[in-house]
């Protein structure tokens, strides 16, 4: 009997001890509204939040009222649920006087094809902002089938208590654990500009800290630029620190850190960013794809301009300018980033009007991210003059000799002579790619009695084309000393093409 009593006493003792441990009496916790991702980023699920509060209160936790939590969120303009910044965790400790914060998200909530719920919760310790416990649970009605279907959950709402019970099944018993006091500064914002610059140019840094310290514990704030330390002074009462300096030193990357020193000797360093000193200009070479005539790049209606980056690096912007022989700017175009791989110029002004024949200077300029520039220029000739050709015919016995001549500077790429009799039947067809040339055409008795008509087409290497109309070849031959040259009004009118 005494042995049984002792066993009963011991069992009772252990049960009470266990209950005391798990109830974690006196621990104050703030339960933030649960985010409901099924309603989007801004969704909130109050029923599950209330169920969670209810179950945790039953576990002995001291729950901060919903109103206090909501007013804290409003005060700090916390708009996103399911997450908290370390700053707000510490602020909650101070303002709500809580040791723990519970945040969470309803990951899924769906009715079809069967009601299903999924929840994830995190327990945050306000002392150091650490997540000390987390759990996730998912449940659907099919998971909760019971024998004979008695009290089986049928709706989403029926799943709430079961889900919360599941998720709190591993609720930590040791929730009172104290954390090591951590020193930290809260960086609200920081910017460093510019990121790329040349030596001697101004760099600027602005830092906004959230003061979470008492006035007597104000830390010293120092900016570490490369290896150089610069003390920062706060703009009165604003928590803003600003500093600008002349960048100096060889090309390279310069990290900028914020170093805070606390009165007790503790130091903290935060990397704000880096800036790059770049004094090396980018490399540029302009290549023009035209025809080289008399050592000049010449074109008629289309010139390919290829900017070649000899030392590739990201660029800020580019500009291309067209100037005439007197140096007057006729056309200019620019863009951001690297220039296109290939540009085309038709020899026209911005309004589409063609420039007259002559020499033009094409200048391309580029700027890298630090503002270093590179420039290259090339001369180019626009030539739209039609080929100057002559035709001379001579009768010699049974044949007619035709001399085709060329007096222009631009080499010929193709010519074609097409002659027909009065009935339109082909008399002769000759072509070639060299001028001057002589053509011998046999002449029958019948041919001598009729007019031989035709045309001569000549095209130069630039694509300029001349067309000479021959009304009567034989009459031309009779006037031996007379040449037919390119008429002034010859045009690019369509003729029977090859």
């Amino acid at each position, binding site marked *: 009997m005494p042995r049984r009593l002792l066993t009963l006493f011991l069992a009772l003792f252990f049960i009470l001890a266990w209950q005391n441990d798990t109830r974690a009496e006196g621990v104050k916790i703030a339960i933030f509204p649960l985010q409901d991702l099924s309603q989007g980023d801004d969704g909130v699920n109050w029923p599950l939040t209330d169920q969670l509060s209810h179950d945790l209160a039953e576990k002995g936790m001291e729950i901060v009222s919903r109103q206090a939590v909501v007013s804290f969120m409003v005060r700090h303009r916390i708009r996103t649920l*399911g997450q908290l910044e370390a700053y707000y965790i510490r602020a909650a400790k101070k303002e709500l006087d809580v040791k723990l914060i519970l945040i969470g998200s309803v990951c899924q909530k769906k009715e079809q094809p069967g009601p299903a719920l999924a929840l994830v*919760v995190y327990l945050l310790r306000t002392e150091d902002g650490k997540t000390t416990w987390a759990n996730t649970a998912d449940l659907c009605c099919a998971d909760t089938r019971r024998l004979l279907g008695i009290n089986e959950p049928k709706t989403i709402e029926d799943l709430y208590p079961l889900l919360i019970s599941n998720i709190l099944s591993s609720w930590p018993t040791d929730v009172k654990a104290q954390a090591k006091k951590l020193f930290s500064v809260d960086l609200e914002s*920081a910017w460093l500009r510019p990121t790329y610059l040349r030596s001697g140019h101004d760099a600027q840094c602005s830092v906004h800290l959230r003061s979470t310290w008492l006035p007597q514990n104000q830390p010293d704030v120092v900016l570490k630029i490369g290896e150089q330390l610069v003390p920062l002074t706060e703009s009165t009462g604003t928590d803003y620190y600003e500093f600008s300096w002349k960048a100096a030193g060889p090309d390279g990357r310069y990290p900028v850190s914020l170093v805070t020193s606390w009165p007790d000797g503790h130091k903290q360093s935060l990397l704000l960013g880096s800036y790059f000193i770049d004094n090396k200009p980018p490399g540029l070479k302009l290549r023009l794809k035209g025809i080289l005539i008399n050592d000049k790049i010449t074109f008629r209606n289309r010139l390919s301009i290829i900017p070649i980056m000899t030392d590739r690096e990201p660029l800020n912007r580019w500009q291309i300018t067209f100037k005439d022989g007197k140096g007057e700017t006729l056309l200019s175009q620019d863009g951001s980033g690297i220039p296109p791989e290939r540009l085309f110029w038709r020899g026209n002004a911005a309004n589409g009007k063609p420039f007259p024949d002559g020499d033009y200077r094409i200048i391309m300029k580029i700027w890298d991210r630090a503002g270093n520039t590179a420039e290259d220029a090339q001369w180019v000739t626009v030539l739209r003059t039609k080929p100057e050709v002559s035709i001379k015919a001579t009768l010699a016995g049974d044949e007619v000799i035709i001399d085709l001549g060329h007096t222009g500077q631009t080499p010929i790429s193709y010519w074609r002579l097409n002659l027909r009799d009065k009935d339109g039947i082909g008399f002769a067809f000759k072509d070639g790619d060299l001028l001057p040339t002589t053509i011998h055409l046999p002449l029958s008795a019948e041919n001598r009695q009729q007019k031989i008509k035709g045309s001569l087409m000549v095209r130069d290497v630039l694509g300029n084309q001349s067309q000479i109309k021959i009304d009567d070849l034989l009459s031309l031959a009779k006037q031996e000393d007379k040449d037919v040259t390119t008429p002034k009004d010859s045009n690019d009118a369509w003729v029977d093409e090859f």
Partner: protein
Amino acid sequence: MAKNTKKIALSPERYRGLISAAIGALLSLCLVVLNGCGARFPELQQLAPLPSKPPCHIAVLPFVNKSKYVQADRIVYKIFMAELLQSTQYRVAQEGDVRKIYRQLKIYPQQTPQFDQLKIMADRLNTQFFIIGTILKAQEQTSGRAANPQLTMMLDLVDATSGKTLWSTYHTREGIQYQKVMHFGLVTTISGVARRMSQEILNLWFREGLQPCTE
């Protein structure tokens, strides 16, 4: 003439033994068949060795969603983070702090930070490792009264100081693969699949040498 047949008499012990063997064989077969559906393991590529010192500070960066399932990145991110916190003593950076630095550095939600940005994040979050995740496929196919969620994700373990990807893990699963008998074990939500996949990935990582924090 009667055929001379020999009848083998079974003793009760031998009979029981044969029955037990038959049941055992049947159960083994069931196990093989059922596990055959579920035996899908994450694929781990170890691109570089982990540092010898166990990490204590880890930051999980917002996942990138390349699937058509809205919120898949957020759901899997939160669940993976919870599983990571559950299975280790790592100090995992708060999601709020990570997203704040994303805003400060002007990194858009579906973007992966560049090398310089990773360095700044590593310093400000005081982290040794980044976990960068991409959801490649997420969908819930409904057939009859049950949904079959499918999830494919890639998780990279990145060294915060060098910005190098040390480990890359690819994992793909379907809810039906977890089914045991009848409806038991069947997973019908993306969240459920994400939870189990996260556990499988973390188990693999620990098995392959990721050490828990010892501080």
